[in-house]
């Protein structure tokens, strides 16, 4: 029996849900979408329900609750009646998942993007290693770490000796 309501095919629903999620950004880094960040792990449509899998950047990142709320709000506004958020902890998020456009956007917004760790600079063996961070304002390598803990769990606080500007560094994890 027909209810008279047109239900689009699941594939179209999925594409539309993904498009909606492209508008959801990180509350602390509003120029990055959750897809750019690698926080968005999976999107599934099952009947009337959209299931969205997200992963936290840091164990206690308070932005996760806001992101979950933003996802539900965006999808509900777009007409999806049921949204289910799944938090995935394994595999653990890493800055390696930041997309190349995300790195470019970070630099364009004055935040030095994570600078790889080919030498395992985040490991115990490099307990006192100091990776050289490039100043996002002037490109100088003459920078000093002020603190490895900044305004959010993912950022460290640096200053440039050349242009004298303080800046944030998106630290490797």
């Amino acid at each position: 029996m027909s209810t008279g309501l047109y239900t689009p095919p699941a594939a179209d629903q999925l594409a539309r849900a993904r498009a909606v999620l492209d508008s959801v950004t990180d509350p602390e880094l509003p120029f990055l979408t959750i897809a750019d960040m690698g926080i968005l792990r999976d999107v599934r449509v099952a009947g009337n329900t959209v299931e969205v899998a997200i992963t936290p950047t840091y164990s206690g990142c308070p932005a996760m609750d806001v992101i979950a709320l933003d996802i539900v709000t965006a999808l509900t506004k777009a007409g999806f009646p049921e949204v289910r958020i799944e938090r995935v902890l394994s595999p653990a998020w890493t800055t390696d998942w930041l997309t190349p456009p995300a790195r470019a956007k970070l630099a364009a917004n004055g935040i030095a993007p994570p600078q790889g760790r080919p030498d395992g600079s985040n490991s115990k063996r490099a307990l006192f290693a100091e990776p050289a961070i490039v100043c996002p304002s002037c490109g100088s390598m003459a920078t000093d770490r002020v603190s490895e803990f900044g305004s959010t769990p993912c950022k460290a606080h640096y200053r440039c000796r050349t242009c004298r500007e303080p800046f944030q560094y998106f630290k490797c994890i």
Partner: protein
Amino acid sequence: MAAAHYRYLLRLADNALVLGHRLTQWSSRAPTLEEDIALSNMALDLVGQARALYTRACALAGDGRDEDQLAFLRDAHEFLNVQLIERPNGDFADTMARQLCYCAFAVPLWEALTRSRDAELAGIAAKAEKECAYHLRHGSEWVIRLGDGTAESHRRMQRAIDDIWMFTGELFEVDDVERAMIAAGIGTDASKLWPDWSDTVGEVLAKATLRRPADGWMISGGRRGIHTEHLGHMLAQMQFLQRAYPGATW
């Protein structure tokens, strides 16, 4: 087996929660703004780790309790953290001695647990290892700065290391719970982490011009629910809201 798994997760979670709460007690009281932010950031990591571990434990137990009930509605004797973690903040040297001793243990512990057969625990461990590596560097730098600083900072850093030393042995104890978890491939043998811990702490103390205390009698009991008087006082503060207003939510 399931009981051992639950207990093993609670031990890991209680260490993270109690240390996390201790670090929040520095918020607005740290010596500089950068330190205030650093200690609060580390507290956030630790409380986050605890929350994920409690959630995992609750899923295993299936007794209807959630992570908040485990954190806020258990009494001191039900907490299974090592006694080293619950020691009061004292002065900055005491806090940094505690950070060094715990983090030098936590980094290799989490690294080993990334290979746990409990995939959820392995995922939590992968994140916690990287977070604790940052905490370890922070604590190490402070121990060196204070130890190799002025005569007064050296004296106080040495006293802090001397005072905490007898609490470090418990980190490496292996009991029936641990043995069951090692056999099941879920846990790791903490006693095997000692050489790594000893190298890290030894390197930092040497750089800090501090004397390494002799390994004498070591205190024990936290992981069986036997605690110093300090934990009860800490819980009285941490749990006040849920005790006064049961079920209160944001």
